[in-house]
């Protein structure tokens, strides 16, 4: 049976097209999932919360999206084996939903940063980063104003700083670009860089494919793809 992968779409999302395009390279059952439709345990093995400005970033980035019917059972859905990647605004939604501790505040420069940045893979995290990838450097695009991630030492105990910037980009604690948390049989991987925008050689940047290649391989080996 083909693995079921989905990209969640909110009003104001703008990264879902790139994510769908990046994931369309794999022989899986891929769907765009509208935020008003609930997600049940077992619906998807892999779920992307894309970048953009869900609900116009009104109130706080991600604050309204976290109450979407699609996210109502997300903790249980993940516990039962779904792997979630939250990209940029998706990271903010995961924070608001308390699936990742801490918060994102404005970049210390107070500027919107749109750039290609070098990132470092630090830890093996299933299904996204293999042991042999640790130490690799990826060039990934970032586009954010609120990417300055802060989290207390206590809350960090359950987190893995899987992806870091090579330089101090925005004053994120320990130069964190992406954090991973294992929940039951699933996981959440929240990151500010956009791997889905660096998934094709024709774009001049395909380092982001590493995460999706690994996820496909891992889920295939597990027998779900």
């Amino acid at each position: 049976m083909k693995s079921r992968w989905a990209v969640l779409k909110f009003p104001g999302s703008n990264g879902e097209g790139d994510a769908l395009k990046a994931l369309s390279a794999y022989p899986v059952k891929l769907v765009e999932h509208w935020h008003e439709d609930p997600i049940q345990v077992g619906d998807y093995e892999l779920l992307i919360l894309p970048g953009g400005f869900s609900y116009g970033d009104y109130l706080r980035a991600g604050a309204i999206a976290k109450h979407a019917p699609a996210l109502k059972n997300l903790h249980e859905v993940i516990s039962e084996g779904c792997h979630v990647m939250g990209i940029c605004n998706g990271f903010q939604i995961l924070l608001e939903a308390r699936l990742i501790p801490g918060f994102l505040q404005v970049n210390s420069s107070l500027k919107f940063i749109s750039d290609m940045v070098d990132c470092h893979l630090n830890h093996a995290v299933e299904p996204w980063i293999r042991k042999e990838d640790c130490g690799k450097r990826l060039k990934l695009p970032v586009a954010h104003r609120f990417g300055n991630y802060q989290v207390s030492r206590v809350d960090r105990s359950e987190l893995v700083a899987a992806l870091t910037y090579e330089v101090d980009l925005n004053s994120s604690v320990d130069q964190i670009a992406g954090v991973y948390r294992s929940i039951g049989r699933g996981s959440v991987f929240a990151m500010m860089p956009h791997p889905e925008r660096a998934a094709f050689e024709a774009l001049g940047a395909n380092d982001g494919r590493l995460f999706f290649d690994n996820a496909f391989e891992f889920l295939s080996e597990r027998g779900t793809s």
Partner: protein
Amino acid sequence: MKNFKFRVRVQFKDGILDPQAEVIFQKIQHLEFSQVKTLTCEKSFLLELEAPSSAEANQVVRRLAQDLLSNPVMESFEVEEVAS
């Protein structure tokens, strides 16, 4: 059921970067209002609701402030009843 009106004020906790407040404060300094020593920004929400009592209305508003209007990780909130 009675009608009640509540105000919820949400502001950043100490130590959270608030560029909006910083920029406004800088402009105040440039305008030579040197008497002003600090400035913080906050969001204010005015709600009207129906409830059996003021205490129950207060509980509902607090739950709403906790769940949606504020992010308790980085913001604090105050709830006050205002005259209808």
